[in-house]
Every structure is written in structure tokens, then in C-alpha cells.
């Protein structure tokens, strides 16, 4: 029986400090109230049946003090919690990206290099990892207690989560949002590996990178006949689209991120590019979420813009591997104490 859960990410350590602060005040006020009630109950116990204690109507000073002091403490809690949350919602740009699909009752992961896993996730120590997640069916929630991290995985949209693991080991992965009969079995393991072991694992046989698999799908679904051939005029050419602004018919513009590409495949009429008619059929129900991620990875590989231009906190580019820079030079993690 462990009383303190393992701390295995940089964020988890920050979380622990914050939680300690919160629980210091919880303990403090609990003790104050318990001692107050206990002390008064003993000291002012009824000694004879005809006692008539002098009425006290109240105290404005006391009301002000016990309104303002807790309010100030609560605001300090809010500020720290919000700062932590901003970090949680802001993945660094040099993060290794992994793509997660939740499905009753399994977790699928795919690495940009093409490796696929079920109910397992392999990541290296010391590098920021960004997960881009979606669901094939109902809402799930990706929860790794040793990282103190969780985020709901929602059908029809991409959510992200990121962490820098600090301690090699095998850790629980849970689904935290109730998702049906076998909710409690929808879990697995996160393997945090030393970088060398991770590189070795990563080189183990995959059937081509995500982008390459996406390229095959692109041909298989007949996308290539319009979107890459010379028939300009009927369909927008997808070279250098990802990560850039796209002008829509009607005058609005949108950044061509993963969410936009996904929507354009499933519901082409939603946002039509300026100068084109919507003649594309919908692929709703024909492409799995995993295949969509591969298609997006391929479209991203056609663009030099990468994930630039994608707002922080949103699901950004799909399927590219950033240069292998160590976590310490990342601006967000610079100078952060590393978990021993």
C-alpha cells in the first residue's frame, strides 16, 4: 500500500507543490473549526437548566475578517491553479507528437514513425510529449495518475495533453470518463523509457510512417485524382495548405489545422474554399478516426508550414516529428527542477 503516488512528470511535481498549498489551508481551517466547536462545546456546556446566557447579536469586524481573509486565500489558490492550468493547456512546439484514439473499450496510439499500440503507450524520459486525442464513439478520458494528468477524449474533435516524463517505469493508464459496460477495463500501461531504449523500440518494424500510410489512403479513397492532379479549377490543391490561412467562400478565413481538415473530409460543405463549388462527397462513416489522423498527417507532410500558425492549446499539426532537442532547452521547461 503506497500512501504517496509516484511523481513521474515535471507537471506532476508542480501539481504536488500546488496541492500541498491547498491542503495546508484545508488542514488549517479544519483544525480551527474543530477546535472552536470542541472548545466552545466543553467550555460553555449547560451547567444548570435555568442558564440564560447574554445574547450576542454579532460583530461587524468579525464578519469582515472572516469574509476577507478566506477570500484572499481563495484568490491565491485560484491564481496558482490558473497558472498551472495554462501550462497544462500550452504544449511546447518541439514536443514529440503521438496520436490517441479512444474506442469502447480500448486505447489506440500511433507514433508519427508509424508504430501502433493498443492499450500501451511508449514514451522517452526527458522529452516533452504531446498527445492529440479523439474518440470513435463516446466520451472517454485519458488519465495517467503518475503524471497527474487527464483530459477528456471527445468524439468529433481533437483535444491535446502534454507532459515531460521524468522517471522511467511502467505506469497505469485509465479511462476516467464513464463510457459503458467495460469502462473499468479500458486501461493499460504507459512505458516511460530511457531515450536509447525508446529509440530502439521506435525503430522496430512499422508499416511506414503515418504520412506514408495516409498517402496510401489518399489514393485509396480517390482523393488524389482531384486534390493532387493537374485539374486545377475543380478542387483546391493541397500542397502548402496545412498550417496556413485559407480563404473561404463568403469571405471568412480559417487556419487549416487538423480540426479543419477533419471537418472538410467528413462534412465538405461546412467550409468551402473561396473560388470552388462544393462537389466533394462526404466521407462521414467511411473513414475511421485513426485513418483520418493518417490522412491529416499526409496532408501536413505536403506543407512546409508544419504546426506553425496553429493556436497554442489547439490540436495542431499531425504527423511530423520535431527535431530531437532535449527538454532543457525548451522555453517552457527551462530552469525547471527535474525530478531526481
Amino acid at each position: 500500500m503506497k500512501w504517496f503516488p509516484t511523481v513521474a512528470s515535471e507537471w506532476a511535481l508542480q501539481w504536488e507543490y500546488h496541492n500541498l498549498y491547498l491542503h495546508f489551508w484545508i488542514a488549517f481551517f479544519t483544525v480551527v473549526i474543530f477546535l472552536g466547536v470542541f472548545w466552545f462545546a466543553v467550555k460553555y456546556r449547560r451547567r444548570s437548566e435555568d442558564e440564560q446566557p447574554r445574547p450576542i447579536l454579532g460583530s461587524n469586524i468579525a464578519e469582515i475578517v472572516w469574509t476577507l481573509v478566506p477570500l484572499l486565500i481563495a484568490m491565491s489558490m485560484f491564481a496558482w491553479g490558473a497558472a498551472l492550468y495554462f501550462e497544462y493547456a500550452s504544449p511546447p512546439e518541439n514536443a514529440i507528437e503521438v496520436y490517441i484514439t479512444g474506442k469502447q473499450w480500448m486505447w489506440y496510439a500511433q507514433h508519427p514513425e508509424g508504430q501502433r499500440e493498443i492499450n500501451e503507450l511508449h514514451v522517452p524520459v526527458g522529452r516533452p510529449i504531446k498527445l492529440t486525442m479523439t474518440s470513435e464513439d463516446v466520451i472517454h478520458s485519458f488519465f495517467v495518475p503518475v503524471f497527474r494528468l487527464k483530459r477528456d477524449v471527445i468524439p468529433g474533435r481533437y483535444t491535446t495533453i502534454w507532459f515531460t516524463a521524468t522517471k522511467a517505469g511502467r505506469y497505469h493508464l485509465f479511462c476516467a470518463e464513464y463510457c459503458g459496460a467495460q469502462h473499468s477495463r479500458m486501461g493499460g500501461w504507459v512505458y516511460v523509457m530511457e531515450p536509447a531504449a525508446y529509440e530502439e523500440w521506435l525503430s522496430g518494424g512499422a508499416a511506414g510512417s503515418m504520412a506514408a500510410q495516409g498517402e496510401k489512403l489518399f489514393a485509396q479513397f480517390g482523393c488524389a485524382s482531384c486534390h493532387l492532379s493537374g485539374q486545377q479549377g475543380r478542387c483546391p490543391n493541397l500542397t502548402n495548405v496545412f498550417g496556413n490561412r485559407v480563404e473561404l467562400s463568403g469571405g471568412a478565413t480559417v487556419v487549416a489545422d487538423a480540426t479543419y481538415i477533419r471537418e472538410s473530409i467528413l462534412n465538405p460543405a461546412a467550409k468551402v474554399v473561396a473560388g470552388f463549388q462544393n462537389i466533394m462527397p462526404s466521407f462521414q462513416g467511411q473513414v475511421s478516426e485513426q485513418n483520418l489522423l493518417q490522412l491529416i498527417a499526409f496532408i501536413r507532410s505536403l506543407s512546409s508550414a508544419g504546426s506553425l500558425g496553429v493556436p497554442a492549446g489547439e490540436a495542431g499539426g499531425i504527423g511530423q516529428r520535431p527535431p530531437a532537442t532535449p527538454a532543457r532547452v525548451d522555453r517552457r521547461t527551462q530552469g525547471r527542477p527535474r525530478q531526481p
Partner: protein
Amino acid sequence: MSTVPVAPPPPPRTAAPVNYLSVSHSVRSWLLTADHKRIAILFLVSISFFFVLGGFAATLVRLELVTPRGDLLSDDGYNKAFTAHGIVMIFFFLIPSIPATLGNFLLPIMIGARDLAFPKVNLLSWYIFMIGGVIALSAMFLGGVDTGWTFYTPYSSTYSNQWVSLTVIGLFLAGFSSILTGLNFIVTVHTMRAPGMTWHRLPLFVWAAYATSLIQVLATPVVAITLLLVAVERTLRIGFFDPALGGDPVLFQHLFWFYSHPAVYIMILPGMGVINELVTCFSRKRIFGYEAIAAAHVALAVLGFFVWGHHMFVSGQSIYAGMVFSILTFAVAIPSAIKVFNWTATMFRGSISYDTPMLYTFGFIGLFTIGGLTGLPLASLGADVHFSDTYFVVAHFHYIMVGGMVLAYLGGLHFWWPKMTGRLYPEGWAKFAALVVFVGFNLTFFPQFLLGYLGMPRRYHAYPEEFQVLHVLSSAGASILAVGFIIPVVYFLWSLRSGPPAPANPWGAKGLEWEATASPPVTENFADTPVVTEPAYNYASEREPEIV
């Protein structure tokens, strides 16, 4: 509260006094009654029945969790058990508990009225409640429902193949009972106060009931229509929430929590109202900071409407929306803190007796304090990322709902039992039961805080072995808690026939229900309309009050 009769007192009666219970004994007289006191008893019997059902479902859950493997129930059976526990306890016990029983019984008497403003609507409220309850229960007995009481989409609207539509129709109907009761209370407090019963003299129980009623009237329609949309999406496949049909699954969460967070205050505010009455009576003191507490009751009701998003910090809502909901959630902690401080200060220099209702008051203040404070890590955007959807949340809201509301309900039931039934309960057994409840409760739910911190997700049928020790402790505590709930049932039933007759005011308490009517009260509460001449809780009235 001393009263001045407007007319000369009636001539002394020679026959045995007729009260609301003895006026007629036929079943028909109960089922067609418009007397708020009898309707309160109808609700009391009904919600006690639902409490037993919800408790049975909880028993199944706790038995299953003794072992990590998930071997007692099937996974489906377990999911149906915790769903039944949540639905029954929240919609058919906690929400009606104090308002529909103690509130129905006491609110008119406390303000010096002969009944609620709309007595027949009050009876209608009970019938609607029962019809909704029977429909929801029939869904459970036909096969059950496995969505959790939260009905998150698209699981509930597309994927669950259980009795979701029938259940939500039952809840839709039960919601109208809540709305009608709230409406009745609001109109009654505005229009039927006795002469001299100004807003500043209202017992704080009435303030709490009034604030609760505002929430019931304003928020319940939202959940009613939301649940109906789930049923429509299931049956007609019109897309509101399922993205495959063009809907938004998170929209459901916004609509659901827009009701269900204020509903938390429907559940706890009346309990706070009860504590005001108990802490003053058994400290024999004026309440400390009457205006502050009254304002805090209303502030909770108002602020409670603007914090629903704290249920969705990890659900993909924008970080800026998250910040607004987080800061408002921290703000809503303050009125609760003010009340706890004022109750504690009321005991200062008092004359404190340890009668059973006061033991429940001690328990309430302590457990509500822990329950309230452990809401702070859930209000913090950062801390909630880990705690959300773990047992920490389960422990937190059970400290509020059971440690707070159920203890206040039991305290209030003991306090007003002599008034409602005309009988005294055995004090020794009652004190013993209060102690058993306190010990059993803490043993049940404190380990769940630790489970949540260690990362145990909620709604898990099977779990990793390292969590077993804490789960076994929790289940052991639950069995003690069950004993603590059974003992009062036995002695309350015993007291109905064999308890010593209660005098009109056994506690020496202030308030019209104690000072202006008999135990049990007569059919229309008062022989003559009372006139109120003094503030609430005017204990030790001959001594000069001080302001410290």
C-alpha cells in the same frame, strides 16, 4: 417567539384535543388531504422508501468493491447499481428531503400561516413526485439504466441500450414536483406571513427554504428540457448531442450542470437552514450575525448559478471560460465559510446542551467544513486536472451530501419529531445512533479522499489491487453507517406507539411552531393568528443583547 393573540383566548376545551393526525384516520383523508402537515408526512414516508432503495444500491456497490476483481456483480450490473444509487438518492431523496418534509411541515407554521398559499398544488406536487418515481423505478426493474445519474452524451443518447428514455421521463415529471413546491414556498413567504413577521424576523430556516425555492423554480426547467432532448435524440435520432448526428456532446454537459450544480444548493441550503434552528436552541443563544447568514443563503443561491463550468475543466471547454468558472467557484466558497464561522460563534458564551439534535449539529459543522474545504482543490483549475473524476470527487460530495445534508436532516427530524408526532423518542438510543453515524460515515468516505489522490477513477467495477485496502475500509465503514441509519428507524417507529407524549415545547425552543401551537399542531395550525413582536431566536430575552 412570544405572541399576542388578536382575539381573546378561546374557552378551555373539555374533549381530547383534535390535531392534524387525529382529525381523521381514513386512507382517503390522507390521499386527498390539502393539509401541508399531512402532505409533509406523505413525502416523509415516500422519501424514506426511496432512501432504503438507494441505500440498497449503495450496499451492492460497496460489496462489489471489497475485492478488486469485479466478481460479485457483472460489469453491467455494477453500472446499473451505481446509476440507481445516484438517481434515487439525488432526485428522489436529497432534492425533496428537507424542503418537502420539514419544509412543508414547518414553513407555514414558522411564519404564522394556516397553510401554504396553494394547498391543492402542494398535494399535486406529491402525486407528480410519486408518478415520476414510479416511472423511474419501473425503468430500473424492467432492466435498469447504466448511464450514471449524469446521463453524459453521446453515451446516453446513442450508445446505451438500456431504459434511458423511460428513466428521463420519470425525472422530467419529478422535476415538476420540485418546481411546484418551490413556487408554493415563494408565494407563501411573500404573502402569508403573520402580522409582525417581518423579513428581518423570519427564522433562517425560512430564508434557506426561500433561497432553495428560487433555485428550484429557475433551474429545474433547464434539466427537464435537457433530459427530454436526450430522449428525443434517442427515439427520433435528431442530433442535439451526438456529433455523428451533427450535435455537440459537451453542450449536454453545459445544460446538465446548469441545473445540476445549483441543485447541489437545493440539496445543502435547507440543511443549513435546519442547523440555524438547532445551534441556537441548544446553545440558548440568538444567532450570531443574522443578516450575514441570511445574505449568505441568498448569495449561495445566486452565485450557485454561475459555477457550472467547474465540472468541465478537463472536458475541452476554453481555458478562459475555465478561469471565469474557477474564480467564481472560489467566490462561492465564501458564503459557506461565513455560515460556518457564524454557527461556531453562536456557541460562544452560550449554554450548550448535548441533546441528540445538537450532536448532529456538531457533526454537520465538522463534516460540512471538510466537505466544503475539499471543494477547493476541485475549484482550482490545476489541481482539478488530477482530481476530476476520481474518488476524491466522490468523497467530497458525500461529505457535503451525507455528512452535511443527511446529518442536518436527521438532526432536524429528531428536533421536530415531538412536534410532528406528539411523541418523544428515546434519547439514549438516539445519541448512540448519532455517534455510530458519525464514525461509520468517516470510515466510509475518508479513505475515498486517499483513493482519489492515489488516482483511483470513479465508477470502476474492477480496480488495481493496490487500492484494495482503502476500499475494504470504506466498505467496512458503510456497514457501520447502515447500522447507524437502521437504529433511528426502529426507535422512531417504536415511539409512534409507545413513546412518551411530547409537550408543546420540549426543548424550550423559540419559534411559532413551539410557542404558538400544540404537539402535534391542530389542523389549521393556530387557534388564532399569532402576532409576532420579537426577533427570531429571542433566547434569554430579558437580558440586554450585546454586539462584540
